[in-house]
């Protein structure tokens, strides 16, 4: 509880400083603000506790079990399902996809009708979810094979830069942002536990150098895929 208070103190300080000193305005609805802040502190405390007793253990125990089972196919199928399933319903992504369909309609890339925009947004969501699924698969393969992460990431950067030159300019901002919004608060701990669990159950892998990196792939592939989507449509 005390730690959560410390985590939130900076935000409170920033908002109070700007409101009172720079904008010189009173804080509206102080009571509501205090209740809301209490809820945030309580929520963060519960979440961190749940993380330690629930999400981390199950992510790691499944990683160990898959490593012991030794079936690469099922491990990769699980990795894909986790990446795809957690992304396709992600609220931040739904919001970004809707914005993107507006940009596309205004730019004359698609017709300015409700249906055309909806199908564009849905297509974009599926594209991003597919790319995250693929990212986790590549990331898991990397942990198993022990490839150094930097080669893959640099290859991804080259991909992003190349696509930038060919993609329609309207889509670039959205594509770059979509890399950041795909990984949600529940996905990150699970995927991290999966990677670290795998790296510690496979001989010759170091959980620190090999276990991390799954999130990095998941934030890189959507950029490439979204620009590709913009080019095809």
């Amino acid at each position, binding site marked *: 509880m005390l730690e959560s208070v410390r985590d939130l103190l*900076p*935000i409170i*300080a920033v*908002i109070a*400083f*700007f409101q009172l000193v*720079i904008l010189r*305005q009173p*804080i509206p609805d102080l009571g*509501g*603000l205090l*209740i809301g802040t209490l*809820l*945030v*502190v309580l*929520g*963060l405390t*519960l*979440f*961190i*506790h*749940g*993380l330690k007793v*629930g*999400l981390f*253990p*199950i992510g790691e125990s499944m990683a160990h*079990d898959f490593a012991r089972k030794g079936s690469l196919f*099922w491990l990769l199928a*699980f990795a894909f399902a986790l990446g795809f*399933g*957690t992304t396709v*319903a992600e609220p931040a992504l739904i919001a970004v996809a809707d914005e993107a369909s507006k940009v596309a309609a205004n730019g004359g890339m698609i017709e300015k009708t409700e249906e055309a925009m909806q199908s564009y947004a849905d297509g974009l969501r599926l594209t991003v979810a597919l790319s995250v699924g693929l990212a986790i698969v590549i990331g898991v393969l990397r942990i198993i094979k022990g490839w*150094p*992460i930097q080669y893959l*990431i640099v290859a991804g*950067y080259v991909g*992003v830069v190349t696509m930038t030159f060919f993609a329609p300019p*309207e889509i670039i*901002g959205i594509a*770059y942002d979509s890399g*950041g*919004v795909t*990984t*949600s*608060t*529940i*996905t990150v*701990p*699970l995927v*991290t*536990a999966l990677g670290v669990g795998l790296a510690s159950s496979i001989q010759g892998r170091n*959980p*620190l150098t*090999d*276990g*991390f990196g*799954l999130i*990095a792939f998941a*934030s890189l592939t959507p950029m490439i895929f979204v620009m590709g989507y913009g080019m095809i449509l």
Partner: protein
Amino acid sequence: MSYLSHFLTSLLSTIRDVLPIAIILFGFQLVILRKQIPNLRQILIGFVFVLLGLAFFLEGLEQALFPLGKLMAEQLTAPEFLGITDGGNGSWANYLWVYVFAFAIGFSTTIAEPSLIAVAIKANQVSGGAIGTWGLRIAVAIGVAVGISLGAYRIVTGTPLHYFIITGYILVVIQTLYCPKTIIALAYDSGGVTTSTVTVPLVAALGLGLANNIPGRNPLLDGFGLIAFASLFPIMSVMGYAQLSEWRAQRDKRSRSENERN
């Protein structure tokens, strides 16, 4: 009463977000691995904690911090505050408080970001305590803060986004060559974890406010891109943090061996 129904809506939407994940986890566990989950009770309790925690967290943010933060972003980017009412663009220095706000809000929201806390806990465990949770979180927060202020500067000047991002990539690649190998994967990861629940709504409000009010900017084109900055700069700051710690450890070792010689 309205509080309660509002909270129930947030709880329901959190459950909807968690449900697909739970189905995938338990589906694979029961059908493919065909194994009893060890400590099933404890894990289910953990899930309930996560659900309730996230629902409270989001509810509180939406009630208290988001409205005020968004209002503030609007006020700070209002033409009257910026002194650009006479139609001109003003100099970039008019926007000083915008950059300071971008830096401060980037730093403070990142410190509170739950997924970053999760990664920091894991990194601390795995490294046997060598990577401090606070050290990592502060390094990432500084990266996000610099990223967001630079992103705000880009919206003000209207420079194309990809110039910055491509330069950033080149810097990341150069840093990768020189930084300790153990930190690389974690540094790349910290780019993706920084931007979720807390940061995105506030930062998006700032970007849209700027793009709406500055003459010649199109909110649909220029309002995006802040998140991209916020996911790129932590990679550099975390590698920088590792380089700095390594350099200090070496310097300490050198001075110790010199002391021994004397």
